[in-house]
């Protein structure tokens, strides 16, 4: 799976979790927390949605990898590929 597709999957989840935020203007290099109304409860939802929709498990020690869109794609890319 290429990075564009990975980004799309992650964005779909973020759009559902931060449902009142505009996700079309996300700067991939900046922490998601600083651009959207996401707190730790919402990050847990992102983790749970990854598991529910894509069977991807993110262990707790890896949560910091989900900080920005770029780090999400870098971290999750290999996991999506492994599943394909």
């Amino acid at each position, binding site marked *: 799976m290429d990075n564009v597709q990975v980004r799309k999957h992650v964005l779909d989840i973020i759009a559902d979790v931060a*449902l*009142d935020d505009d996700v079309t203007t996300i700067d991939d290099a900046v922490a998601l927390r600083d651009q959207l*109304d996401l*707190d730790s*409860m919402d990050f847990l939802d992102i983790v749970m949605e990854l598991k529910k929709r894509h069977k991807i498990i993110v262990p707790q020690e890896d949560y910091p990898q989900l900080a920005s869109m770029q780090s999400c794609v870098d971290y999750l890319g290999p996991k999506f590929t492994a599943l394909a």
Partner: protein
Amino acid sequence: MKYDAIIIGAGMSGMAAAIRLAMFDKKVLLLEKHVITGGLNSYYKRAKRDFDVGLHALTNYMEKGERRKPLATLLKQLRIPYDSLELSPQRHSKIIFPEKTLTFTNDLNELVEDIAIHFPNQIDGLTKLIAHINEFNETALDNEHVLAKDVVRRYISNEELLEMIFCPLLIYGSAWENDMDFSQFVIMFKSIYMEGFSRPKGGVRTIINLLLNKLETLGCEVRFRSEVIKIETKNEKIKGVHLKNGDFIEADLVISSMGLPETLSVVETEKELPTARTGKMTFTESILILDKFPKDFGVDTTIAFFNDRPKYLYRQPSDFYDPASAVICLPNNFVHNDFEDGWVRITNMANFNKWNEFTKDEYRAHKELVFQNACKLTKKILPSWNEEVVYKDIFSPTTIKKYTSHFGGTVYGSTDKSRDGSTAIKGLVICGTDQGFLGIVGSMLSGISMANLYGLMD
């Protein structure tokens, strides 16, 4: 058939908990004794009009896009768009004491300015109190229990001001008489004075319908007329629940919103469990429908917290109700009026036992006395009111008991709260009022956090 989780009670907290679990594919069963949802904040129809049981105002108001707010957390966790509530903020509320009246809005500065006028030498203390509140983590589940008045007295030396500040916070959310836990005080202070009041368009039905639609879309099973009469355990671990109709349903997790003493009363164990006290705070509610709007009588206050004594007595009255203090809500006076008639809702503290002992005739006569007093209060708040009442409805602590099954008709639950939701039984969790989070927003947040903690994090 075995469920991942059973939720007892389809009030605000139970519905929110069920939604969270169903959202992540848990097999959930939501059980409700009554024929409709809503619990303490349900609805009914009389004389072709829609009545809400409880709703005066939704606390924790926020504008769209505001961040890190409890209401935003709630809406995100349930995936409900902000716009679907169509919130209409309050205009202003008043705290009316014999000597002084304070006015507050959804902007804390206006209250601070009004306090500066009426209690100029208290402003430094107030500023420090607000700073303390801002940095306090009120939702930590392990905060030590301290009485709020002891803490607030360190900042506010004028007892009249202290009583005035506490009045709305106590009557909108304290299970304790005359005081509350400091964490609860901070929750209430933020939700009422810092965030403030609003009303969803359509009242409580709007919230309930949003929750019901969610439950339906998620395919969550809801059973009405399903009273849990026994919670079965083995070796202090949950087994399942028995319904009045004889069914036994198994689950590893049971989240109960019945209330702590109510839940414990149906648990069957080998070992004796600690008991919990029945809460004393309950109310009468008088609803008057007028032929004109309050603004036609020149009044645009949304809520008036009225107290006719130098001290504010928040406690179970020794008589059947307390006529000397009340909350008077004028729901037409949110920024957008939602109604075709004029409405006045008046809440008085009441004594459950007195109401429970009345004969049928006495009951009716005492309801009439409450109504007469409600008319007097209405006249006080709307001095040029023409005294026309198109329709009235009064309900009592026994009505509350009948429809919600809370012991003693208690609205704010037991004074024994289970802050982390746990009980002596593994897999039996308390959510809602007796987990310590009150009101519509609070109880939903409680349902969400207990579902997350015990049902989703493994």
